[in-house]
């Protein structure tokens, strides 16, 4: 306060309950107390109600024998020997499988469509635009039912299976791929693969340092491919191809052996990827458009062609805008995978909140566990995306 002003009379002491600091602390304490009281009351109430209605409660069911079959199991599971807890893990892994692969597919399709929509090629831009507008505006459940019925109805019966050269069989029971069977002597191949990966990383670092120092570029891609794929392949041939394939065989009812890919899985993966890709495409388009036109023009004036200009100048800057909404789309895809229940894919909700809940009758416990699981999956996904985001974020110096 400037000293030449006349001294103000000291403000009268405020009562403690008018002190904003005290007030805000008091409000927060009261809010905390109310929340704790509500949660505690609700829990007490639920326990009381369950006891009075004579509905079983507790988590004892976790170790009881499940007794029902699951069509797709990534881990060992048998109806007679496995528990409800095991069924939970089977369902969770199925959810993670379809969500994980779905996120990869949706991202690839989404980026291609998003960039295409901005293309100067009229047809490409319109096709991409049509894709986004049609897919984005139809309910996902409808699309899943469409894919499931389209996949099922279009494929032939098991006795008229389509045999694709290379041992792949296709029919309305799913895709059947040959399963690699490992034999002895593979150690050398694995070792060479490891050596290849380490070598490739070392080469990368060396090449970047050299480029920063001298400006010379090294054929990074070719060397990487050679080290990671070529070297193990050469060793593999040298040690006498110690790998066999178990080919699927057509049995009386079903196909035996090989890797089975259920039509439910294919339909769900297609539906989720294609639907989410339409949203990702718009996110990507928005991100690219957010980069000022001057950046592209500057890149062109430096002599960069459109491809490298997009890859090296525009996309890295667009990522800052793209990542946060992209995270939401990944979370949406994961949560939307619960629609699996409509087409019989055994995801967590179908197996756990469907069959397990019904067989045990313990709605409160089962629904609470399921909610917690989706919360954890979502939080982990956004944590990973936030880490990535902080890496691409604008670093202010």
């Amino acid at each position: 306060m400037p000293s030449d002003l006349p001294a103000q009379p000291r403000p009268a002491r405020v009562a403690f309950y008018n002190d904003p600091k005290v007030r805000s602390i008091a409000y927060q304490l009261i809010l905390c107390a109310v929340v704790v009281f509500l949660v505690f009351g609700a829990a007490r109430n639920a326990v009381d109600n369950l006891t009075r209605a004579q509905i079983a409660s507790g988590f004892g069911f976790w170790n009881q024998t499940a007794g029902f079959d699951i069509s797709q199991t990534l881990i060992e599971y048998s109806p007679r020997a496995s528990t409800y807890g095991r069924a939970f893990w089977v369902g969770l892994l199925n959810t993670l499988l379809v969500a994980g692969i779905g996120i990869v597919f949706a991202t690839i399709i989404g980026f291609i469509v998003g960039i295409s929509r901005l293309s100067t090629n009229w047809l490409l831009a319109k096709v991409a635009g049509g894709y986004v507008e049609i897919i984005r505006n139809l309910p996902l459940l409808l699309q899943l039912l469409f894919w499931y019925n389209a996949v099922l109805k279009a494929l032939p019966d098991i006795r008229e299976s389509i045999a694709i050269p290379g041992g792949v069989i296709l029919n309305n029971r799913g895709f059947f791929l040959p399963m690699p069977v490992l034999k002895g002597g593979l150690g050398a191949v694995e070792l060479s693969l490891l050596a290849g990966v380490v070598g490739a990383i070392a080469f990368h670092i060396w090449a970047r340092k050299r480029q920063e120092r001298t400006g010379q570029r090294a054929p990074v891609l070719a060397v990487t491919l050679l080290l990671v794929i070529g070297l193990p392949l050469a060793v593999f041939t040298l040690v006498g191809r110690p790998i066999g394939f178990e080919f699927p065989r057509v049995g009386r009812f079903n196909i035996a052996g090989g890797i089975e890919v259920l039509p439910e899985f294919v339909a769900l993966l297609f539906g989720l990827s294609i639907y989410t890709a339409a949203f990702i495409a718009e996110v990507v388009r928005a991100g690219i458009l957010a980069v000022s036109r001057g950046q592209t023009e500057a890149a062109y004036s430096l002599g960069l062609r459109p491809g490298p200009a997009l890859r090296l100048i525009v996309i890295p800057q667009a990522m800052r805008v793209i990542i946060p909404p992209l995270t939401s789309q990944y979370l949406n895809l994961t949560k939307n995978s619960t629609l699996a229940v409509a087409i019989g894919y055994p995801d967590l909700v179908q197996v756990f909140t469907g069959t397990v809940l019904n067989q045990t009758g313990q709605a409160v416990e089962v629904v609470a566990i399921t909610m917690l699981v989706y919360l954890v999956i979502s939080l982990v996904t956004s944590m990973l995306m936030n880490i990535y985001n902080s890496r691409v974020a604008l670093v202010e110096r």
Partner: protein
Amino acid sequence: MKRLATLVALVFAVTLQGASAQTLKAVKDRGMLNCGANGTLAGFGLPDAQGKWTGLDVDFCRAIAAAVLNDANKVKFVPLSAKDRFTALQSGEVDVLARNTTWTSSRDTSLGLNFVGVNYYDGQGFMVRKSLKVNSALELNGASVCVQQGTTTELNLADYFGAHKMQLKSVTFATANEAVKAYDAGRCDAYTTDASALYAERLRVTNPEDHVILPEIISKEPLGPVVRHGDDQWYDIVKWTLFAMIDAEELNISSKTLDEAMKSPNPEIKRFVGTEGNYGEQLGLTKDWAVRIIKQVGNYGESFERNVGVSSPLKIERGLNKLWTKGGIQYAPPIR
């Protein structure tokens, strides 16, 4: 999301309706019985194009309404899927569940429910395409089987295949509709459910005559109505509604012969129609409670024939569901 609704009800309701033992009063105050029904199964519970419900289980709910509210039409049918049915009853959304539900010990105890009796003795069977040339369920090793989720069927299926050391590939669907559709589309070799429902579902596939129901019955499926645990008065009313329908058939009292029965000197019939004793009042109803059931709905045999019997589209023989006097096992305690 019925399950979420239940969760909310369980967590926040001060007391559950089920625990308060006031179902009869609630139904009378409402003037309407809320009945959990199937909604997609011909012969048991299915609304027609005009929204009029028919079926064996539907008739049973109408009988309760006739006894309690004196109007068989004062029933609101709530269609429930197999996996949502128990939570709907637990949370008080329906007063009674008559939805071809198998009576098992765990359902009777740990779910907080009570089964009142058996209105259809059933067993689980398989339907396959004739072109598969399968004559027995024991030939189904390695077969894909479509099945509805949240049923005893799902468990029996795994038991049966396990016990006979056969390989099973089950494909599980949330509703019977979806399971039948997938079976019809060729996703599965076989469809399994209770035998009575197999006859009904066969009528829905593209070419019913291309499908055959295998002779094996692999389980006991006593189907019966269910009420919440803890309301003994309501439990008695629902239980004796079922017994009254069966007793009426045994006493040859049907909707057509009711007028003669009213004049009958037979003491058993007099007790049934309420001209002797106060058995209806003991239940908390009126003397003519059983008469209203028979007049408005009919006896068990009439209901059976109309909905699932040989004169219905389902054409199911009565078999086990004949009265005990005629070689079956349907039997009800006497009204006295």
